[in-house]
């Protein structure tokens, strides 16, 4: 089960961050965060970028601490961490440029 847990850790981080960013996006639009000035333009974009960055850092840390080993037992956790990192990077990069609401 350790193998499964390590393999699923990266995609799980993506799933959590994706849900969090989508929820923050909806909540921010409803609460008018886009009109509150802050670094990066608005409080809304700042919150979204911080959440995205936290996800990237978490995936990066996962890559750093994943267990060593050989063969498929080592490959799958490594692949899982890269899937998490790649998916977080690619699916949420719009937080830095797209109009928020």
């Amino acid at each position, binding site marked *: *089960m*350790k193998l499964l847990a390590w393999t699923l850790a990266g*995609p799980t981080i993506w799933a959590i961050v*994706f849900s969090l960013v989508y929820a923050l996006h*909806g909540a921010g639009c409803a609460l008018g965060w886009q009109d509150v000035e802050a670094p990066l333009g608005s409080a809304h974009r700042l919150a979204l970028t911080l959440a995205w960055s936290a996800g990237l850092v978490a995936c990066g840390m996962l890559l750093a601490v994943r267990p060593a080993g050989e063969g498929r037992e080592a*490959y*799958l956790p490594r*692949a899982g961490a890269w899937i998490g990192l790649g*998916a977080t990077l690619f699916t949420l990069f*719009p937080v830095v440029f797209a109009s928020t609401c």
Partner: protein
Amino acid sequence: MSEAKFVPEIAPNPPQRALALHRQLDRVWANGPGLWGQITAVNHTTLGLRFMGTALIFFAIGGILAMLIRAQLATPQGAFLDTDLYNQFFTMHGSIMMFLFAIPMLEGLAIYMLPKILGTRDMAFPRLTALGYWCYLFGGLILLIALFAGVAPRDGWFMYTPLSSATYSPGINADVWLLGITFVEISAICAAVEITVTILRQRAPGMKLTQMPLLAWYMLGTSAMMLVGFPPLILGSILLEVERAFDWPFFDVARGGDPLLWQHLFWLFGHPEVYIIFLPAAGVLSTIIPVLCRTTIVGYGAIVAAIVALVFLSFGLWVHHMFTVGIPHMALAFFSAASVLVAVPTAVQVFAWIGTMWKGQPQLRLPMLHVLGFFLTFVMGGLTGVMLAIVPFNWQAHDTAFVTAHLHYVLIGGFVFPMMAAATYWMPQITGRAPIKGLGAAAFWVILIGFHGTFFIMHLTGLMGMPRRIDVYPANPEWTWLNLTSSIFGFVMTIGFALFALDLILQALMGRRTARNPWRAPTLEWAMLLPTPSYTFASLPLPQQQDAQARLTLARGEGALPGAARGVRELLVTDAGTARPDHVAVLPGNSALPLGLAAAIGLFVLMMLAGLYWLTLPALALVAALVWRWGRGMAFTRDHAPVTVAPGLDLPVQCHTPMTLSHTGAVCLLVANGTLFASLLFGVGFLSVVAPGWPAPPPGHGGVAEAWMIGATLVALVFGAFAVRLADRARRSGAGMLAGAGAGAGFVSNLVALALIAWLAGTALDDPTGHARDALRGVLAGYVGLHAFIVTGFAAFAFDQARRGEIAPSRPGSLPGWRLWQDYTAATALIAAAIVLWQGGAA
């Protein structure tokens, strides 16, 4: 990370006479005689075939509906069907193909195949398999009878509100869909639980996760997706049915609801559904391609990683079905990016299969023809999927025939062609007979030509602006010839499917006897008699016996747990991670209980459909009584001696261990349940934040009295959690009386919680028909109330077990299961209470 070192060396058993073992095992595992024997069958081989056979019948019915649709659309202003009938037919075509063909077909494949490729004798919960089948059959029959009675659903297989609301869809048509499909979904959840448990806990000793056949990985991914993917739709269906039946306004804009909530809940299921269907098909391809190319699969690890990526990413795409509803640019960009990204793991698999063919020596035998048909069709469907993931193109093509073409390329390419490959590949295994030469190939070419003639053309029809789901269209010369062509080729395709079915029937009835392993495949399903005996393996494969070569060794009982000397259905349960032998599970035998329980659930559904809501209560009481009886059938009344599995390896029977198959199954079920609750929280958040008509008007009830009642309910449920621990501690120390007292205390406290919730709902919550906020609070109270009822039942059952002496120091009985559910109930009640109080305070 290396876990294999924990699996001890297991010596083989001494050889025995294979025929004697066969007779001994068959007496224990075979179905009973006659019709009653078929009704009470719980064997996975019987039920797997029954699932697949029934799914094929529904496929034929769905296909006939498709032909009626194409007949209507063959000419402009067609008069073949009226609008109402046309709407019923296209709704039923989609619903049947998705819910009554594709999902049950993959369930049947998994149920039939998994025990055989994993080296075990049956699925983890044979009665659950049977219950799933009966729920599927009865739910499907409800839909079918409605079709013949002219009251079939007519709002599309997606049942969008407000079209499907009571205002715009009066009558029972929409209810038939909501209740019938939810009934069928019980079958999907049953299958998902047992597929997961079987793969995790019943692999042959020493078969590590990284060594199991790829088909098992695909099925594990599929079952995980079903556990998480189906609950949002089940919740949505319940909410919409409650709105239609009792006027609780979850989707009514005027009273704080929002139709978009339905779309979110539906597509939270609906998009993963595509991958739920595709993954098993891909598992078939990963099994067949290396065998027919005389080589091994290229990129096993990469394929497993791709499965993991698909399982997760497919849950991040659902909004691409809603690109045109008015969503901010940033959210569009998230889901567009995810929709494009999901093509990567799909492509990894496609390239792995191409690499395997490149590496090996492909043989153009019948299953391989269907594999090539898959490549041609699915890749095109995947590419048009990437086109639709791009927002500006999606806006142009949305709701046109282009999307119809795309989804058929994906579903027929990604599921039907691989399933036809699977059928032609495994028919010798199923029937013990070889195919009739030539007919299968003819069927393949007719289907391929008919399919592309129908649907390739349809891309153009869509790009020329023809909308989907219309029954008549103007005599636009650009559309007319395209539609006529699609209709003609549609009939060609149908002829092809009829030929395919004829080929299977002729093979089953008239085929000559097949060789034992006609494809020279390495996997374990070929290491047994053909057709498969009721017990699958006479002895279970040890680490050195896990391929088709071990057929004789296993038949002679040289594997683990040979024969059935104790006269009960036994199999080996292994550790989820290491596949180390853990204990011996005794499975229930043939039983009519699954049929009875499915009939009781069906009675509830019929009472709801008839609007006889008070009569649903006796039906529910019957369900509860049968569930109790189900549990009684699993109770162990005395200690059992360890079972000798192999020389020097004695293992306990399941009643002496807490980590049973049932425990793992309960965890899986709670994962599904937790997803349903999370979907409900999503609904609360979505309506509170996005829906118009909020904030809600101040509540008329509530305040301090409401807070006290909620607090008292929580205390009662938390006390129940203490009680189960107390009972378990007393059980371990041998104080049977005290264990019974703990169970009794838990029963009383849960009963108090149940009464408090009923009182709260009756006196302290506002009329749920007034505003979506109050409807949501009502649903939260109902959810916690249902769980309070369940844990009350658990406590009563444990009390009864203690009274009968079935709970002992070495036998935990139902206490581990009760503890899981009690903790879950307390936790969800806490969250629900916080929301109800917060909503009251906020107002």
